[in-house]
């Protein structure tokens, strides 16, 4: 058992401790006290000052200072304004926001009301993907309970402050996590991004000033009010304060949801909290930032995690997906996987993203089939640069990152695919051959009987052979053989 406690639960303070469907349990853990404090004793300017002083930055990935965003929206003139919670979590393998909404929905409701008070808004909207039925159910229940208790609605805490929250459902398009696309989707339009400026803080939902924050960002707010900006800013690094929630996944022993202070190293996360790599395999890379991020090698294991350090290392914080890869993962295939994702999720509005990513994917596909050339690697780099420079929104601007970071950190693997037509990790089927080692084969016929395409021939008790022209590389023979006679070359 570990001695030192590496995690600090701020955003997840109630997750797993309270019944999310009982408002009293949230109240018992100081719930809605921050809202009461703000409404009854502090001006909106004072609250915004606290959020600014705390150093809280957007946890959805962008890292924009939250207090500044609130201030900008407050300064916008029109009478109607909106508070939007971005719960359109879409990175592969990420489930931070879902867990917060399922485990502690009131923390988000309370923070949205505080935000409404600060920016001068009476209406909050949660944009949540329809694929999160349980989170929706609990959030709805929580909103109903808050209304019943008078913590949402009219004259909250007898101060005359009015605020209510409604839900808007997303159909699960990745691009709708981008705030302008999200707003269009809420308006009933196609989920396509538009050029900024104007920023949502000036013209957002229905053309009105709109403050969009991520679920985890909101979950931090009540604690900052209750414990003070100074308490919050004691944790973290110089420019990144507080903690970050990560969904730790991949080839790691303790897959899970963790929350660590900013400045914790990747090594501490992977080896101490995560319990190291599965089956004692060697660590190869860790992917952060989802399809917009990059793969970091063991050289970066001692990098303290914060917004700036991860960008400097060639990846990004992102919303908190962290996927660990071991020696058996092929980095070209990983890049191809992320490109497939972006390709599916690109809205198609701008050409660099729609067509550029398609071309990137085709080149990667060629390389994994052993048909790539050195020129292809050069083209990947050039095309990536163009897509990054010319795409309309964050999705396109960051989509080549997995390609660029794998080329930068694992160029030898690309070269092995291109020059030697080999996949060092043994993942690219087209570059592999299953062969039977004659001296180990006992002629038991097990592989012969299990081969689905009849590619294996041989007499009983004599060595068998695989016909490479027929073999579909399903690996059944490899798994079935009891004598380790089949190897991958």
């Amino acid at each position, binding site marked *: 058992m570990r001695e030192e406690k590496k995690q600090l639960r701020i955003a997840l303070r109630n*997750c797993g401790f309270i019944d999310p*469907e009982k408002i009293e349990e949230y109240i018992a853990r100081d719930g809605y006290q921050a809202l009461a404090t703000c409404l009854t004793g502090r001006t909106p300017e004072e609250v915004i000052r606290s959020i600014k002083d705390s150093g809280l930055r957007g946890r959805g990935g962008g890292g924009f200072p939250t207090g500044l965003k609130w201030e900008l929206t407050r300064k916008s003139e029109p009478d109607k304004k909106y508070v939007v919670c971005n719960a359109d979590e879409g990175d592969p393998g990420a489930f931070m926001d*879902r*867990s917060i909404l399922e485990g502690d929905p009131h923390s988000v409701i309370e923070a949205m009301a505080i935000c409404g008070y600060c920016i001068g808004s009476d209406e909050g909207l949660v944009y949540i993907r329809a694929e999160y039925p349980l989170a929706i159910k609990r959030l709805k229940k929580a909103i109903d309970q808050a209304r019943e208790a008078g913590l949402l609605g009219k004259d909250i805490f007898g101060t005359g402050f009015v605020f209510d929250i409604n839900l808007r459902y997303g159909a699960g398009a990745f691009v709708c996590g981008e705030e302008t696309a999200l707003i269009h989707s809420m308006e009933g339009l196609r989920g396509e991004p538009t050029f900024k400026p104007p920023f949502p803080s000036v013209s957002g939902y229905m053309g009105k000033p709109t403050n969009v924050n991520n679920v985890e960002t909101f979950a931090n707010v009540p*604690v900052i009010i209750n414990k003070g900006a100074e308490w919050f800013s004691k944790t973290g690094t110089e420019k990144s304060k507080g903690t970050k929630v990560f969904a730790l996944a991949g080839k790691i022993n303790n897959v899970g949801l963790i*929350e660590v202070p900013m400045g914790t190293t990747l090594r501490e996360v992977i080896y101490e909290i995560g319990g190291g790599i599965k089956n004692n395999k060697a660590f190869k890379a860790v992917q952060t930032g989802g399809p917009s991020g990059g793969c970091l090698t063991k050289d970066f294991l001692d990098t303290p995690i914060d917004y700036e350090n991860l960008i400097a290392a060639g990846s990004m914080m992102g919303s908190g997906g962290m996927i660990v890869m071991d020696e058996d993962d092929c980095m070209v295939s990983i890049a191809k996987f992320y490109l497939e994702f972006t390709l599916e999720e690109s809205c198609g509005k701008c050409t660099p993203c729609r067509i550029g990513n398609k071309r990137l994917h085709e080149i990667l596909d060629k390389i994994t089939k052993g048909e790539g050339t050195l020129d292809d690697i050069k083209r990947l780099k050039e095309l990536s640069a163009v897509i990054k420079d010319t795409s309309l929104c964050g999705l396109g601007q960051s989509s080549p990152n997995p390609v660029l970071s794998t080329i930068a950190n694992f160029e030898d693997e690309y070269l092995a695919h291109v020059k030697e037509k080999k996949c060092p990790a043994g993942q690219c089927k087209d570059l592999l051959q299953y062969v039977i080692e004659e001296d180990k084969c006992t002629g038991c016929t097990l592989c012969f009987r299990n081969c689905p395409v009849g590619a294996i021939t041989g007499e009983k008790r004599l060595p068998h052979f695989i016909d490479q022209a027929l073999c579909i590389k399903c690996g059944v023979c490899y798994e079935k053989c009891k004598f380790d006679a089949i190897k991958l070359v």
Partner: protein
Amino acid sequence: MQKIKSKSGLLAIREEVQSRLNQWADPDSPLQAVQIKVGMATCGIASGAGEIMKFLQEETEHQAIDAVVSQTGCLGYCYAEPTVEVILPGKKPVVFGYVNKLKAQEIIDEYIKKGELIEPVLPVNFRTIDE
């Protein structure tokens, strides 16, 4: 729930719930009760937490154990779902992992009734905001 009209009204509810929890946790209180919390986020439910929760409810009732079985969100131990936290009066919370029906029965028979720990107990590897 009645309408909360002021900060003092909010604090009154907080006190009320806290004192109830304290009584449950107090081994000298006549109202003491074993608190059993089942991790019922999507991850837990997917690995069978719903069934475990139902079993714990039925079994504690059947055996007439003073217990409050409730659901909670995700504690983060995805690798060991379903997870069950047990707070015995006067004791620190203990989180059990990989709980199937057999393990749930063991938790009741060994830990709740006799106070004897059974494996696997999951490590508390985090600090809270109050530490």
